[in-house]
């Protein structure tokens, strides 16, 4: 049964009123120096603004270079010595970190505001312990640039239309956890556990010549759209937001037949660090309703705290329970994450030569 943020919170009800962020009670308190790994651009701006509103922690912000995956070998190389108090990540990077047992278990005592966050979305280890604190949700979906797209794309079949020759920007094997193939699989009657219909459609799409660029990084996609090279694509929230700043885009998040996926962005608290409490306190502050709303406004990802207001520009990520049922596909992430390597290799052998 799929859960929406709203109906889950109606179940939890008002019992979460207890876990509000405690304002720092008077007195001069030396700020603890913490090191955090965050994404650059709007995300670190949002976090800097949040950090400025409290005085329990002072940050050395280290930026993720390239995707979130570039930091993994650094942690592995230095282990058991760890240089970061928390690392911002998403399902893709959290999965590896949890498998390697690099992250602390988080309890309600550590971060009371967790009670406001939907339980279903929290990443857990094999024993069911919560390992990462979600802060916001972003989407991965189809969309197009309203002014330059040859026509209004409304279904998967449209992608094969001759008018879209060279106009599609498709994510590469390191992006989007290959959920784009899952989207194609859904069209063909399959899903993440039965991907054959998806691979068949992908082969057809590659042969059609409609794919102009395979985006290898977030920036590739944005540049491709803003320079007018391509006009239709499937990508994650940050890139859509970057394009939307300057051009009108149509986000197909509520389009029947074109699946939308939601991913979380959040905090992973690292083991072997001396300031666990200060880190947890800051994270608790950062996921409070006011700070969640601030993060949503600046970083462009929808807040997960049930009490935070969703800004109007993120309306495309606000789903009623019925909409959620129809448009959002929540894959079995255990399957998706364990198949990443196999899917990437299959892409290389079956699809890449056809492009």
């Amino acid at each position, binding site marked *: 049964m799929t859960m929406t943020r709203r109906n889950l919170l109606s179940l939890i009800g008002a019992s979460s009123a207890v876990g509000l962020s405690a304002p720092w009670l008077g007195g001069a308190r030396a700020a603890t120096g913490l090191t955090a790994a965050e994404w650059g651009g709007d995300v670190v701006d949002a976090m800097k603004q949040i950090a400025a509103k409290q005085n329990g922690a002072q940050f050395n912000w280290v930026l993720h270079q390239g995707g979130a*995956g570039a930091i993994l070998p650094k942690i592995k190389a230095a282990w058991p010595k760890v240089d970061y108090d928390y690392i911002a990540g998403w399902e893709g990077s959290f999965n590896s970190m949890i498998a390697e047992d690099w992250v602390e278990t988080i309890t309600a005592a550590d971060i009371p505001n967790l009670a406001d966050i939907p339980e279903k979305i929290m990443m857990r280890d094999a024993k069911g312990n919560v390992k990462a604190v979600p802060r916001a949700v972003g989407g991965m979906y189809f969309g197009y640039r309203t002014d330059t797209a040859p026509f209004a794309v409304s279904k998967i079949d449209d992608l094969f239309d001759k008018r879209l020759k060279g106009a599609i920007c498709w994510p*590469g094997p*390191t992006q989007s956890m290959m959920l784009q193939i899952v989207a194609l699989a859904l069209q063909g009657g399959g899903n993440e556990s039965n991907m054959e219909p998806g691979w068949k459609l992908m082969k057809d799409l590659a042969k059609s010549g409609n794919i102009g660029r395979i985006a290898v990084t977030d920036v590739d996609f944005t*540049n491709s759209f803003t320079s007018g*090279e391509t006009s239709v694509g499937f990508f994650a929230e940050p890139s859509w937001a970057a394009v939307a700043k300057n051009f009108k885009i149509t986000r197909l998040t509520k389009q029947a037949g074109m699946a939308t996926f939601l991913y979380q962005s959040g905090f992973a608290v690292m083991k072997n660090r001396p300031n666990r409490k200060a880190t947890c306190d800051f994270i608790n502050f950062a996921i409070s309703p006011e700070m969640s709303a601030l993060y949503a406004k600046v970083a462009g990802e929808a807040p997960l705290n049930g009490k935070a207001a969703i800004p109007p520009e993120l309306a495309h990520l606000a789903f009623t329970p019925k909409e959620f049922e129809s448009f959002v596909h929540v894959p079995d992430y255990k399957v998706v994450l364990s198949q*990443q390597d196999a899917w990437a290799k299959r892409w*290389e052998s079956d699809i*890449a030569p056809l*492009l």
Partner: protein
Amino acid sequence: MSALTAARPQEPAIPSPAPARMTFILLAPGLLLLFGIFVLPLLGLGLESLRQYVPGRVGSAIDAPLTLENYRELATASFAGVLYETFKLSAAASLVGLLAAFPLAYCIVRRFSPRQRAACIGLLVMLVLLSMLVRTYALELAFGSVGIARPLLLALGISPTSRGYIEVLVGAGLLHAVMPICTLTLLGTIQNIDPRLCDAAQSLGAPAWKAHLGITVPLALPGLVSAFLIAMTFAISAFVIPMVLGKGRVLFLSNTIYTRFSDVANYPSGAAVSIAMLVISLVVLSLASLAHRRKGARS
């Protein structure tokens, strides 16, 4: 004077072959450095390539069993395709680069005035210092599918998003990066060729092209081969150029490796591709320099 000559009666008039000990002392720092920060890390990588990868983990576990699976996975047509694409475009770009760089270097050394020489060398140095990422995007905006050259391409009937054109664009990107390096490398070579030989040939009645082909080029051959090898090695390991100009569709070996070093942290497989790439490239390049040396020995 007499003391000097008196002090060296036993010394042969022509010195014997360089004493091996001196050579070894000179080589020692370079060898140590190379061994310490290149060979050893690569050996570590080689070991990683033999380890088993469990999907979902970061790299191989400490106690992972040894296996040849990572190499066996590479025996596919698509990997061979990427290999072929890499070497084909690299060789083409290096050859064209050399053909363009040689006359340019010659003119800089022998034909330009000192001021023109400074301006040209300054331009080349600026090009070498130009950031690869910026250069690639500049080329994309100039010659890419939305570039200023787009109307011209369409007029000529070339589709800017076709695979053929993208390959040419990647080649042009490599060419642009490689040409300044080749030219600057060849400056030293040409400086050490006696211009009077060519003058003599021309005064004896040979046309300019014959004189250069027969004299300048053979004398510059060692330098040309050196420049070609530098260009080729640079091009093979290019990453940004194929990624941006190749639109993610023309893949080089380094792009294949990058896929394995990202969120899908399959380091063993990435290490296997790297070692395979190193071995194959060394074979190809040593064949090239071997052919040159044999030719040189014959002449």
